[in-house]
């Protein structure tokens, strides 16, 4: 795990931006006070996806440890370390997985190591956070730097946040199609958090991202994407507490649009219900819908992998052009149903368990235009967590 690089921090420091992935306070309206207690947390994830015909596709086991510690009443430091191992098979095009991949003759078995570190300084009416992250697997290295500043009004009922980040990735695919390819992304975010009533708080976030470099999927057949990608997001969230029954609802909506031609809507609702003896149960539902990328090439049942299509182009001397047969760039809708159970033990410990089931269907797209040739996609994920305050 790479620690914060002083040289890079020096470059960012002047800009007064900060954001931390693991830092548990950048979104609160009263984040200006340093936390009184630190937290050590561990979380395990088991993920498994599948499609009809191939019972199991990609399986992931991930382990993360994180620590957040207050320092001298005006600072806090936060760090996390993740190891994950991925096994299984990915489609070569659309939802087609090569036979030898299913049989286990040459499955993917990848390991990834990632770490991040961030530092926050608390000021009377706000805070500044700087952070960095690093992720490494056999074919992909990602480095990120971020900064965020938050400022609150006198009554602390309104908080403005402004953040920026820079990510640089290096790709060396194991099939040698991508050799020392790079991708650089700059992003910015602006947010307003507003207290409405004693039981209501809302937030609006605007995001912008601009990337240049290698966006192709080197493991997919004839995959050629633009060398740039710009995206914009608008997200709004509302938390409401029901005093009478001691429950809290979290409602969220995000609109996403990018230069690939994709527009997506994400609706989220979760409801936390406090129960006796420090139990909390949280059912959740998420609905997602996206349009297809401009260059998505749909399934042709008569021509698997569009081999005849590419052959005709080749024979005519026509360049293949920007296109992709990646299912993830098609038009679809997806529904997640989840439930999380938490228990506080002995004042300082919290144990949690979360189950989620994800279903993706071409026919569920809000805007229509789903590719009827694609099979349904399903995934289930389970998380187990343990944390202790100190």
């Amino acid at each position, binding site marked *: 795990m790479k620690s914060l690089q002083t040289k890079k921090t020096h470059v960012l420091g002047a800009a007064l931006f900060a954001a931390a992935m693991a830092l548990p306070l950048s979104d609160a309206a009263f984040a200006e006070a340093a936390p009184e207690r630190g937290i050590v947390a561990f979380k395990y994830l088991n993920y498994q996806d599948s499609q009809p015909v191939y019972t199991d596709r990609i399986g992931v086991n991930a382990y993360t440890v994180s620590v957040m510690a207050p320092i001298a009443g005006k600072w806090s430091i936060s760090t996390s370390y993740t190891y994950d191992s991925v096994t299984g098979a990915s489609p070569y095009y659309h939802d087609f997985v090569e036979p030898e991949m299913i049989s286990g003759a040459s499955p993917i078995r990848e390991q990834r190591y990632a770490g991040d570190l961030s530092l926050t300084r608390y000021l009377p009416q706000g805070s500044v956070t700087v952070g960095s992250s690093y992720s490494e697997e056999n074919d992909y290295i990602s480095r990120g730097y971020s900064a965020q500043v938050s400022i609150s009004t006198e009554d602390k009922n309104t908080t403005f946040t402004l953040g920026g980040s820079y990510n640089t990735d290096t790709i060396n695919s194991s099939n040698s199609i991508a050799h020392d390819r790079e991708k650089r992304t700059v992003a910015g975010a602006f947010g307003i958090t507003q207290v409405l009533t004693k039981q209501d708080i809302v937030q609006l976030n605007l995001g912008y991202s601009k990337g240049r470099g290698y966006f192709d999927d080197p493991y997919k057949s004839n995959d050629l994407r633009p060398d740039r990608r710009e995206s914009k997001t608008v997200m709004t969230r509302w938390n409401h507490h029901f005093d009478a029954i001691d429950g809290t609802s979290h409602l969220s909506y995000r609109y*996403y649009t990018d230069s690939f031609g994709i527009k997506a809507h994400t609706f989220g609702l979760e409801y936390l219900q406090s129960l006796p003896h420090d139990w909390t149960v949280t059912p959740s539902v998420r609905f997602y819908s996206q349009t297809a990328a401009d260059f998505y090439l749909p399934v042709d049942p008569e021509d698997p992998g569009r081999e005849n299509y590419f052959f005709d182009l080749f024979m005519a001397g026509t360049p293949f052009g920007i296109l992709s047969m990646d299912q993830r760039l098609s038009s679809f809708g997806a529904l997640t149903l989840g439930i999380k159970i938490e228990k506080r033990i002995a004042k300082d410990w919290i144990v949690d368990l979360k189950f989620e089931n994800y279903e993706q269907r071409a026919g569920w797209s809000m805007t229509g235009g789903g590719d009827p040739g694609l099979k349904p996609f399903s995934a289930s994920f389970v998380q187990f967590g343990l944390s202790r305050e100190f």
Partner: protein
Amino acid sequence: MKKNVLLKSVYALLLMMLALSGCSIGPAVQPWEKETLARPEMTFEGDPLDNKYTEHIYSSKEAASGGSGVGGGGCGCN
């Protein structure tokens, strides 16, 4: 087209600021009335590790990503 989206975003932002940062719903909430708002379940941060895992899963299986702030790295996720 690009300019139009940007302008609409700016107007939405200004409208939101006007609507919210003024009087909100009723009188402004006083510091001694913030007991409920101070509860962890009333923040937007949630469970950081839970969010990190689910964001990673969704950005690996869907085209959209981000929305709630900056930070975090990438991966060659399939």
